[in-house]
């Protein structure tokens, strides 16, 4: 059975953005992203102007998926933290609540220790919100949230002009 969609609402989106904004500051990071395991960008914080965030999200998810495959082969459930060290920038990737991926990009103005510490706290907060969100999605959507049902065939055809 295809699983139901991940749905993001205004309220949770604001809460999530507030958490990753704070993480960005507390960890002295350059950028913070939240990505769905399927590769969709959920939220970002920091200066993303020069960055292809869509590609970044897709490759992060691919990276986590490949590492998850390795973990399974070794009999691990998953590798919940990945760290890539570059000459200038480093990437810290962690899985939150088995469902979303938290990405922190930082340089020598921060440190792995600090990032780890701050990520831990932010993860717990994010986990709570994501759980709430999934509950809300499982419950029947209200009329206001059910806009999609009104899509007509004509709307779909219009996309291709």
């Amino acid at each position, binding site marked *: 059975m295809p699983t*139901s*969609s*991940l749905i993001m609402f205004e309220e949770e989106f604001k809460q999530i953005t507030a958490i990753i904004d704070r993480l960005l500051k507390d960890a002295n990071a350059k950028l913070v992203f939240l990505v769905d395991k399927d590769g969709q960008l*959920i939220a970002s914080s920091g200066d993303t102007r020069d960055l292809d965030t869509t590609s970044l999200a897709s490759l992060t998810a*691919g990276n986590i*998926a490949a590492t998850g495959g390795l973990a399974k082969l070794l009999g691990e459930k998953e590798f919940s933290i990945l760290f890539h060290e570059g000459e200038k920038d480093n990437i810290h990737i962690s899985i939150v609540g088995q469902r979303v991926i938290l990405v922190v990009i930082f340089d020598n103005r921060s440190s792995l220790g600090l990032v780890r510490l701050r990520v831990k706290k932010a993860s717990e907060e994010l986990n709570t919100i994501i759980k709430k969100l999934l509950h809300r999605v499982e419950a029947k959507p209200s009329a206001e949230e*059910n806009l*999609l049902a009104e899509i007509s065939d004509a709307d*779909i055809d219009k*996309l291709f002009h």
Partner: protein
Amino acid sequence: MSFINYSSREINCKIVYYGPGLCGKTTNLQFIYKKTNPEHRGKMISLATETERTLFFDFLPLSLGDIKGFKTRFHLYTVPGQIFYDASRKLILKGVDGIVFVADSQVERMDANIESFENMKANLKEQCYDLANIPYIIQYNKRDLPNVVPVVEMKKVLNVSGVPDFEAVAATGHGVFETLKAVIKLVLIELKKGT
């Protein structure tokens, strides 16, 4: 799995091009990339071998305009067709909203088509998906070659369920956008049902 963001008013869907090695999956995406206005597409990422065979996946993000005030975005992926990359294929199928099965029309590739189609069903099943419940269509590619199997024959083998199917020459772009439009339409109709 689609991602609907009511806050930024976006709908995101994932479409996967599946099929045997060298059938033309990457070529489909390359043509879409080339012919799409840069405003409506992002960078195409190809994780490929030195000989341009897909190693992990190709990725092309498209954004196609609004429906009822929602921006629609489609993430196109290809799987690696070579048999021994099965672990990667499984990963890429995760969260799929729609599939294009690209078949190679050449006589000598019919066995490979069937094997790949069965492999797709098995991999979906492993993730508790049933092909019957997923929007999918079939593309008979490489119709320009001399040694092709007649379409009626291919239908009998690969399209027993009678899903929408299209002839194509991905190398010149013939049939590529017809295929894409058809799968997007099916995905959106399914999304509408689901809500």
